[in-house]
């Protein structure tokens, strides 16, 4: 398959490379990162380019790797009037996403109590297989969560009104309808609000050290104000509820494709016209799942505030424990973009990719509107994470989208063969990173060497201009499922 250079850190696979491609596939990567992408990425991004109604190009971000259906790091926009929606372009963990909290604390404040803090957070935020949350919900209340998202949590005392201002879509995507959610999905998620999950999900204590500040002016706007400032980052999604919504509709779409006369190159790309009954039902259920993910991160935020307040004997307001931003990874959103001079309503799928709206966009919180939407890029627990902002160029180039993480370079089993979880925990402790995990093997799977170099990913984003790098964070404490 020909992968042609198409600009600085931009590569393109022309439609002539695979029968059925309607648009080119466009990959954003340095030569090194491109070389680290597996063949699955090229197969999958060109499969996406074959889906009905796709416009401009099927995109893959620099953290891209072989996923199921879409590549991880995949972005594709489909015409809302004639295009499709595909659960495989969103993923089962609907609105898996990142939330970043700032504090007034510094590393000097936290270091002496770090082990105690990590242990307390581990106990307060259930994680791992089969974990149950502390919020007891009736079925009726859970349906309210689906409709209201993070707003339900704030209304019930699990957050502050200002948290919603700094959450993508104010923590509630429109169009959520529990009527399109199965009883099984409801039963599966009912007891999981406030749980972290496992795999690459985490809750992390991080430091913004002076050498990690790339743009002090923008960092100041985002509330990065002092050397050694402590931040709390969390990565999790819609838990079993979202997973079941994805499972239910994958089965529905698998059958519906025959009725709609659609064929796909990978069964996981099962899709239906966005305006069809099946497409609209999935969109309503997907938004319900996205809203429960916002609620999940909001409840965990509440627990973090409780724990840090207890450990440091201060009110959470005194600790300055406010939300920097909360951003989705796995969604399809109805957005308006300009394509070849025409303004179109598009269903923008981002799978393992982040929205990155530029300065001046109405959907960016007023406090950040001058600098662009905050973009939170989660790295590995060993190597750190990054805060960027969206750009005007992203609006033109990638439907206002960017990467979501470092991206894996090896499988979970390969990682486990290279290191024992216990040994990795000891090594990290020696480097000043305290980890508490529900699964030792899960720790090994998430070792830093299993991922690409986050700095290289962030540098490419900045170089292409689809995001602007602001801060790099160093991890010092991690809770992992």
């Amino acid at each position, binding site marked *: 398959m020909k992968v042609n250079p198409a600009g600085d850190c931009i590569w393109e696979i022309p439609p002539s490379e695979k029968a059925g491609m309607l648009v080119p596939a466009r990959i954003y990567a340095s030569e090194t990162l491109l070389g680290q992408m*597996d063949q*699955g990425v090229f197969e999958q991004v060109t499969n996406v380019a074959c889906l009905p109604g796709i416009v401009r190009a099927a995109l893959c971000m620099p953290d891209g*790797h*072989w*996923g*199921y*259906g879409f590549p*991880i790091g995949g972005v594709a926009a489909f015409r809302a009037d004639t295009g499709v929606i595909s659960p*495989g372009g969103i*993923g*089962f*963990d609907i609105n898996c996403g990142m939330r970043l909290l700032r504090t007034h604390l510094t590393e000097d404040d936290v270091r002496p109590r770090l082990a105690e803090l990590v242990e307390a957070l581990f106990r307060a935020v259930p994680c*791992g*297989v*089969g974990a*149950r949350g502390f919020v007891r919900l009736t079925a009726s209340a859970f349906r309210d969560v689906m409709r209201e998202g993070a707003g339900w949590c704030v209304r019930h005392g699990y957050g502050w009104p200002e948290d919603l201002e700094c959450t993508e879509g104010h923590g509630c995507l429109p169009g959520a309808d529990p009527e399109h959610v199965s009883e*099984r999905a409801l*039963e*599966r*998620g*009912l007891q*999981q609000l406030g749980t972290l*999950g*496992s*795999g*690459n999900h985490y809750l992390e204590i991080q430091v913004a050290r002076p050498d990690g500040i790339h743009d002090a002016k923008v960092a100041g706007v985002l509330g990065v104000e002092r050397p050694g400032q402590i931040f709390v980052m969390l990565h999790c999604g819609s*838990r*079993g509820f979202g*997973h*079941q919504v*994805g*499972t239910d509709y*994958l*089965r529905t779409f*698998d059958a519906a494709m025959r009725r709609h006369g659609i064929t796909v190159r*990978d*069964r*996981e790309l*099962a899709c239906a016209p966005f305006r069809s009954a099946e497409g609209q039902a999935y969109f309503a259920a997907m938004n319900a799942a996205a809203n429960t993910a916002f609620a999940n991160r909001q409840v965990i935020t509440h627990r973090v505030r409780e724990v840090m307040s207890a450990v440091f004997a201060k009110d959470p307001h005194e600790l300055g424990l406010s939300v920097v931003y909360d951003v989705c990874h796995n969604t399809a959103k109805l957005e308006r973009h300009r394509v070849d001079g025409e303004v179109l309503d598009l269903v923008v799928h981002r799978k393992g990719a982040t929205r990155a709206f530029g300065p001046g966009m109405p959907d960016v919180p007023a406090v950040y509107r001058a600098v662009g939407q905050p973009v939170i890029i989660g790295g590995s627990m060993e190597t750190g994470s990054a805060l960027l902002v969206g750009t005007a160029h992203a609006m033109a180039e990638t439907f206002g989208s960017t990467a979501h993480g470092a991206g*894996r*370079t*090896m*499988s*979970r*089993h*390969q990682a486990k063969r290279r290191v024992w979880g216990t040994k990795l925990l000891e090594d990290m402790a020696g480097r000043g990173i305290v980890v508490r995990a*529900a*699964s*030792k*093997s*899960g720790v090994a*799977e998430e070792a830093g060497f299993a991922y690409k170099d986050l700095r290289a990913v962030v540098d490419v984003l900045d170089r292409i201009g689809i995001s602007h790098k602001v801060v790099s964070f160093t991890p010092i404490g991690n809770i992992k*499922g």
Partner: protein
Amino acid sequence: MGRYHFVEGIALADCAIDVEGADLPDLFETAALALADVMVDPATVPTTTRRTITLDAAELDLLLYDWLSELIFRKDRDAEVYTRAKVAIDGGGPFRLVADVEGGVLDPARTELRSDAKAVTFHQFALERAHGGWRARIVIDI
């Protein structure tokens, strides 16, 4: 008892499994154990729970998809993981599965936890006859 092994280099963040069985029930039973092995160390799950599961599907591969999806569903709804299954499959399409499963409630104090399976994907999903028996490829979203 059939065999399974984890396949490298497919869907890097997830878990691909190749399963072989002497016959269909054997394959379904082996796939259930493989799924449990993804989520926990099966040897650390006490056998305290017995359930009967009945499923219907129009196609055999969809029956396998629904079977594993059901086990994942119960892991979240009931916090139960099953490490043994006795499966019977009837019909020539549609197909009916009746399974007696054994396992226990997840208890982090006793059970070695591994990865939380989110869903069965259709990526490279296949169930076919091979070498006088059956084989399947399954990619589990982690």
